[in-house]
């Protein structure tokens, strides 16, 4: 029976302790160099390493979120600012900085299963998608594809110094290190869903500034996106379905603004139209709260 080995084994371990006096535990007879304790020490190391990496990725994700949000705020100024070109250039510089952070994320994830750390970086990536697709829309009046986004997230570095250190002889003069990060389809969809909120704001802002073309362009564009999300419906993950409600509201606001433009446009001269909408814009902002 097992009792023979069991009690014999444990008794032996107890006696081993006395000469060494390694008892760190007041509960006594726990040998800190027993195989169990050695295993748990390695578990401690493994868990700490994993948690540290997760934390580094969370920090990077936060930086990505903040910088992406600032880019979005910057891009909104394009409606009222005459110097659109300058704003676009500045936004490109900001997005490049974000991409450098994403490069660091990619480097952290080398040799790792991305999905193990996905929750750490997902918020940042969604915000980045929102910012980059916003800029893309302003430039091209179209929706950036996930492929386009991921193309910009391939980072290469020419490393001449590595060549002398590596034993595996690479006959080429330069070695290319490549890191890449792929935004998942779900993160892309969630980012685009949030984009619609910004487009709605852009619509109201442009109306308030007397731009009466943008709202109609936006309305058409938003409708296409809404149709896309409706097509997906509930077949996606829950987080995607949840966004559909807010999307519908954003679209409704834009459509109502277009309606008002159309109806009032026929009775009020253009130069007064702006005044009508600046008050209406205030009302819409207020009901939205601080969003």
């Amino acid at each position, binding site marked *: *029976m*097992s*009792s*023979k*080995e*069991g*009690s014999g*084994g*444990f008794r032996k371990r107890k006696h081993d302790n006395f000469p060494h006096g390694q008892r760190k*535990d007041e*509960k006594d*007879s*726990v040998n*800190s160099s*027993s*195989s*169990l*304790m050695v*295993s*748990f*020490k390695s*578990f*401690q190391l*493994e*868990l*700490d390493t994993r*948690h540290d990496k997760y934390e580094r990725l969370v920090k990077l994700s936060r930086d990505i979120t903040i910088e992406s949000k600032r880019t979005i705020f910057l891009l909104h100024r394009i409606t009222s600012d005459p110097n659109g070109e300058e704003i676009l250039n500045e936004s490109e510089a900001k997005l490049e900085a974000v991409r450098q952070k994403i490069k660091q994320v990619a480097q952290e994830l080398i040799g790792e*299963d*991305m*999905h*193990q750390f*996905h929750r750490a970086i997902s918020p940042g990536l969604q915000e980045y998608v929102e910012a980059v697709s916003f800029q893309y829309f302003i430039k091209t009046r*179209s*929706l950036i*594809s*996930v492929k386009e986004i991921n193309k910009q997230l391939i980072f290469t570095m020419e490393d001449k110094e590595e060549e002398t250190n590596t034993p595996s002889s690479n006959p080429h003069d330069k070695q290319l290190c490549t890191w890449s990060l792929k935004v998942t*389809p*779900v993160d*892309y*969809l969630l980012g685009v869903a949030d984009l619609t909120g910004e487009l709605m704001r852009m619509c109201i802002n442009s109306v308030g500034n007397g731009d009466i073309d943008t709202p109609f362009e936006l309305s058409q*564009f938003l409708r*296409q*996106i809404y*149709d*896309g*999300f409706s*097509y*997906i419906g509930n*077949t*996606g*993950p829950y987080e995607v379905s949840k966004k559909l409600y807010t999307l519908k509201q954003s679209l409704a606001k834009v459509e109502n603004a277009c309606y008002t433009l159309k109806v009032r446009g026929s009775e009020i001269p253009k130069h007064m139209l702006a005044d009508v909408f600046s008050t209406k814009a205030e009302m819409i902002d207020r009901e939205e709260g601080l969003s």
Partner: protein
Amino acid sequence: MAVSEMFITLQGVLTADQDIREEIRKVVQTLEQTAREILTLLQGVHQGAGFQDIPKKCLKAREHFGAVKTQLASLKTKFPADQYYRFHEHWRFVLQRLVFLAAFVVYLETETLVTREAVTEILGIEADRERGFHLDIEDYLSGVLTLASELSRLAVNSVTAGDYSRPLRISTFINELDSGFRLLNLKNDSLRKRYDGLKYDVKKIEEVVYDLSIRGLNKEAASDAGGEK
């Protein structure tokens, strides 16, 4: 690419993902069934008569693990090998349960803690993530903590069945396990919550040992050990 085309493509990707998950769910169900069978088998050791049968039960349980190996081999084929953590949530629970059952069998056989490598051998999976379908360390630790709860129950029932030495050995084992867990820096997640239960297991076993020692029953056991069963 038109917006509508993009969404049609995306829809295709999402649907394909759902299909994979459906396949995974089916296999996980079979795993859960086998796990329940092993559990029912091993629960029998808590009964008075069950003590004699321990070796037989362990052998029977190991036979069931053969089925588990086959089912896990099937599970491996349901998704791309490098996307383990994408679908991990689907089998996390049953895998933790299987770790517990393997640890319980090994404890009943040898009164030692099954190592992570030994569990992966019993289950027929890899030890490292790089080599394929593996056992995540947190799942291993969760399973081990469930073992602690089971052993605190076994300590109580051992006394009831007249075995006064087993609880003492369980006590030593659990105390060492507790010391091991104290080394870990855990985050506030489900593993941490489960670990918080360990101190109640430790306490319960200590009470059993105390009850035995003040009545002198443990000394009786010590002198009988080896010849009792």
